[in-house]
């Protein structure tokens, strides 16, 4: 296939809102989802005469992000990026340009893949525009209403090197980045609320070529799903353009989720003449080695390392489950219960599935109780189904698993009772029994199923199996 001669080159620009109490330049609250235009003042409205004063916490958060991404933290200044837009109160954006706070970092996706982080700089967010009109379509709208609550909220923009090789890898990069940012407690990483926004720069080139193709920038990627679909779409669109003998145009494109396409945004000839110059109302930022060192020491263990600590315990490494457990911040508890004697494989399975829906409740339980529960299941004293029921009960009663188990009548089935039950089933199903005796392993599930049905799931599958084996050999 001709497509195979092309490879995509992807770079991502991720904007994340910092979790400061106040905005970047003023004491207005940095809050999501409040009444429009209630967190505003002369500064964030850019009223004539107002001046910005830099939020120290935002600088520290930015430096922490840089450090978490292995960047150098450098003395930096702010520039003005000049362009007119109604959601931008000053009609320029204060942003860092050629002297950003963080440069030359990297992000490790796993043992083998590392993506370069060119820079992670500070800038201010814009307000929000709501179109007003009978339909949502722009050419029919009668106007727009602007809410400046978000104007001046601190952002860090993290720019990756153009080293991402597929939509899936892009997704992995964003997931990992998000996990790191959430771990540093500098941002909440909510793509759906727009506190984390991703733009993708996509180009394609012939495999083996060193030069980059012409890139397009894709905006409006509001979820990981959109990110993957939009990049895949854009890659094949560009390949088609080239195959048709045309040239890819350098432009900004908008991902339309409903239509599953990217469409060019109206481009203006002067669009990229931003007339950057140093912001005269702000002064140089230089945190100094001591503070940078302190910030570095304050960083938590990064998610990759936390996952590694789990995976080291396993015979069959399961990256996805480890990712979930770390993402939910349950890994500390998991390591503790394993240390106290729980089986690592089973613990990871339960933590990443059943326990994952009850993060806060699980954290409130004593680790010993969880160890006991996992051991009851591991030794066959409780079936998987029974263990789930006991777990559900533990969340509300906080009693010990064995007490709950007795209370629920689990473990009341003695082997002799099961043997009697099995004998009845065997006599009703002679064909299946003969097949089992002839060594047809598939039939064992049939018998286990029958027992479960008769006991309403209270029997332990492992016990049933050992009884069947014993009967076969007798």
């Amino acid at each position, binding site marked *: 296939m001709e497509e195979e001669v092309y490879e995509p080159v992807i770079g991502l620009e991720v904007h994340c809102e910092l979790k400061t109490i106040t905005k970047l330049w003023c004491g207005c609250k940095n809050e999501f989802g409040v009444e429009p235009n209630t967190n505003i003042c002369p500064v964030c409205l850019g009223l004539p005469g107002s001046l910005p004063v830099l939020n120290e916490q935002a600088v520290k958060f930015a430096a922490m992000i840089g450090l978490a991404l292995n960047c150098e933290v450098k003395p930096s200044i702010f520039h003005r990026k000049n362009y007119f837009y109604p959601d931008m109160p000053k009609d320029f954006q204060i942003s860092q340009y050629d002297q950003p706070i963080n440069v030359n970092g990297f992000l490790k996706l796993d043992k083998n893949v590392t993506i370069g982080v060119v820079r992670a700089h500070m800038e201010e967010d814009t307000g929000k525009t709501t179109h007003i009109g009978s339909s949502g379509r722009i050419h029919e709208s009668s106007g727009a209403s*602007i809410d400046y609550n978000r104007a001046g909220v601190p952002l860090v923009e993290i720019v990756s090197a153009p080293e991402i090789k597929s939509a899936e890898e892009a997704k992995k990069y964003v997931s990992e980045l998000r996990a790191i940012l959430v771990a540093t407690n500098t941002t909440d990483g909510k793509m759906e609320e727009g506190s984390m926004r991703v733009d993708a720069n996509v180009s394609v080139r012939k495999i083996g070529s060193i030069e980059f193709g012409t890139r397009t920038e894709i905006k409006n990627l509001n979820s990981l799903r959109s990110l993957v679909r939009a990049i895949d779409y854009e890659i094949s669109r560009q390949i088609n353009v080239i195959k048709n003998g045309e040239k890819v145009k350098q432009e900004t494109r*908008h991902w339309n989720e409903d239509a599953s396409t990217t469409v060019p945004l109206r481009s203006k000839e002067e669009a990229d003449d931003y007339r950057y110059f140093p912001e005269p109302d702000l002064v*140089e930022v230089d945190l100094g080695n001591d503070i940078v060192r302190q910030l570095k020491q304050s960083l938590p263990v990064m998610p990759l390392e936390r996952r590694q600590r789990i995976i080291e315990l396993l015979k069959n490494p399961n990256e996805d489950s480890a990712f979930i457990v770390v993402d939910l911040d349950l890994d500390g508890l998991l390591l503790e219960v394993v240390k106290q004697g729980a089986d690592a494989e089973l613990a990871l399975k339960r933590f990443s599935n059943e326990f994952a829906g009850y993060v806060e409740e699980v954290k409130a339980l004593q680790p010993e109780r969880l160890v006991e529960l996992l051991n009851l299941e591991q030794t066959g004293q409780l079936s998987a189904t029974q263990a789930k029921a006991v777990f559900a009960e533990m969340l509300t009663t906080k009693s010990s698993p064995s007490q709950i188990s007795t209370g629920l009548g689990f473990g009341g089935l003695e082997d002799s009772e099961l043997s009697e039950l099995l004998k009845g089933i065997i006599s009703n199903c002679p064909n299946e029994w003969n097949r089992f005796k002839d060594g047809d392993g598939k039939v064992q599930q049939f018998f286990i199923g029958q027992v479960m049905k008769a006991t309403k799931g209270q029997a332990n599958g492992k016990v049933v199996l050992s009884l069947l084996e014993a009967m076969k050999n007798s």
Partner: protein
Amino acid sequence: MDNNEEQIISKQDVSYVASLARLDLNDDELESFTVQLSAVLVHAKDLSSIDLSDLPPTSHPLALKNVFRLDTARESISREEVLSVAPQRTETGFLVPPILGED
């Protein structure tokens, strides 16, 4: 004004700059602004006669560093006070004509 001076900025330049600055110029204005801006830029050419190579640019007369604000919230101002002087408003926001080029 010295009419023998070359015009170092063209009408097209002035027109481009006006569009960047969101200004609309009629033909007469374009003509006169081109002449006037040229005069200033011709004067500014004297800067190229100095050797600036060893001089870092100064964007602040005073070299201040690390001026910060603590991350503590204070009251915002009244929405009504601000919206009441807006050219056009909705109940809770600033109303503008349609914005082209986006969804």
